[in-house]
């Protein structure tokens, strides 16, 4: 996907889109797509925390910055594919839908699931990001150093 040769790049990309999406957006697309695949729940949705780390001086020793809420869930489709959902926040439905989407993306239906769920979420996130970037660009300045009083 990004040409890096990482065999997991495509899956990482859709999992990232699902994790960062708004729960309400995922739910709306899921309902609209009308997917109801047969599955068993391997890990019921669980709310927890991930300790976010930074680096001293941005490049040095790692340190603990604080936690963020994350909800996770794992499912197995009747056809055998295992899907994992790790999503930001406390949305249990969000985590289930992410896990099911991850599983479906490993089946022959992947192109349809990509078009119905992943692509719209990715586009929405991209548009939001582009708008913020454009607003930031409008506040870009050039400072001029004024000549100081001659000595």
């Amino acid at each position, binding site marked *: 996907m990004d040409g890096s040769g990482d065999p*997991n790049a495509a*899956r*990482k990309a859709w*999992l*990232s889109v699902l*994790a*960062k999406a708004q729960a309400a957006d995922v739910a709306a697309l899921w309902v609209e797509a009308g997917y109801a695949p047969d599955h068993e729940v391997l890990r019921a949705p*669980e*709310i*927890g*925390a*991930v*300790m*976010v*780390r*930074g*680096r*001293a*001086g*941005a*490049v*040095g*020793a*790692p*340190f*603990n*910055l*604080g*936690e*963020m*809420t*994350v909800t*996770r869930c*794992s499912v197995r489709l009747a056809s055998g594919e295992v899907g*994992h959902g*790790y*999503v*930001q*926040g*406390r949305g249990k439905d969000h985590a289930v839908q992410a896990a099911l989407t991850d599983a479906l993306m490993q089946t022959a239906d992947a192109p349809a699931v990509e078009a119905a769920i992943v692509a719209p979420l990715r586009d929405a996130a991209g548009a939001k*990001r582009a*708008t*913020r*970037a*454009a*607003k*930031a*660009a*409008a*506040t*870009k*300045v*050039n*400072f*001029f*150093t004024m000549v100081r009083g001659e000595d």
Partner: protein
Amino acid sequence: MYVAVKGGEKAIDAAHAWLAEERRGPEDVAELSVDQIKGQLKLAVNRVMAEGSLYDPDLAALAIKQARGDLIEAIFLIRAYRTTLPRFGGSTPVDTETMACDRRVSATFKDAPGGQVLGPTFDYTHRLLDFKLAADGEAPSAPERAEMPETKPHIMSFLDREDLIQPEPEGPETPPDLTREPLELPANRPLRLQSLTRGDEGFILGMAYSTQRGYARNHAFVAELRIGTCAVEMDIPELGFAIEVGEVELTECETVNQFQGSKTEPPQFTRGYGLVFGMCERKAISMALVDRALRWKELGEDNVGAPAQDEEFVLYHADNIQATGFLEHIKLPHYVDFQSELELIRKLRREAIGNVRQEAAE
């Protein structure tokens, strides 16, 4: 010593009911929604997330509503909730170099590659009350400018190339965690940074200000201040690789300080570092200044006895939940304690007055 007492249940229930009513405020005014707090009091939400040490804007907004706008009380609620969550793991350190910046300024290089981006800042406002806001004034829409995305390398990396800045040493992949192990001294830098980032903004600001006024002699420049979002990536054992599990808004501040050199280090610039959840610029700058002051030992500087150099003083008093817990407990029933104090003072007075009388009689 606090001693448990019985009784007062009815009074407590009535107090809680009244608290709920007072929180709601006048009923002829629309109730504040959690979404309104999240969207319109975002900097308060950010502070609660930073000091509550939990990134979740919905929870922070709820806490602010429940706490009637008392941010330390809201932070307390978040800290309490946080302890109920199972820990899924630790993220790989966020890569702030790839931050999608809303704001990015440097006070040291005017022609910073990637540019100076002001973002939605209070700087350059006149700090005059805007009465239009009280009269439902509509907000103007922010202008946009299409631009090719530009990378924004850390300003510090330019100094690094010339060896003019002290290098940052590597550290263990899993840093110490003061939410799991009690804070012990001496604390290494990762532990100090964790303590500072969740510390009280007012306290850290005061400490930072003291260094500027001469207590620790660290003249800092803001080499770079950036605010924006960073992806959070974590290794997922069941997948066998790392994925992004979300994204957080962060404020990062890197300061550069002049350093004359010491017995062990050549003259070069040194660094202070601040990284805080949300848009918390004052806090990030303060954190960087205090971080730098606390580094005197590892940089071979003299301890000039400044409060900001005293790690025990700074780290043990930075946490507003610990502080308020201990401070506010003194208003709770101490009747037994006080009873014995009362007995003692009466006895001492009896003796003292007795002595005076005796002297007078002699």
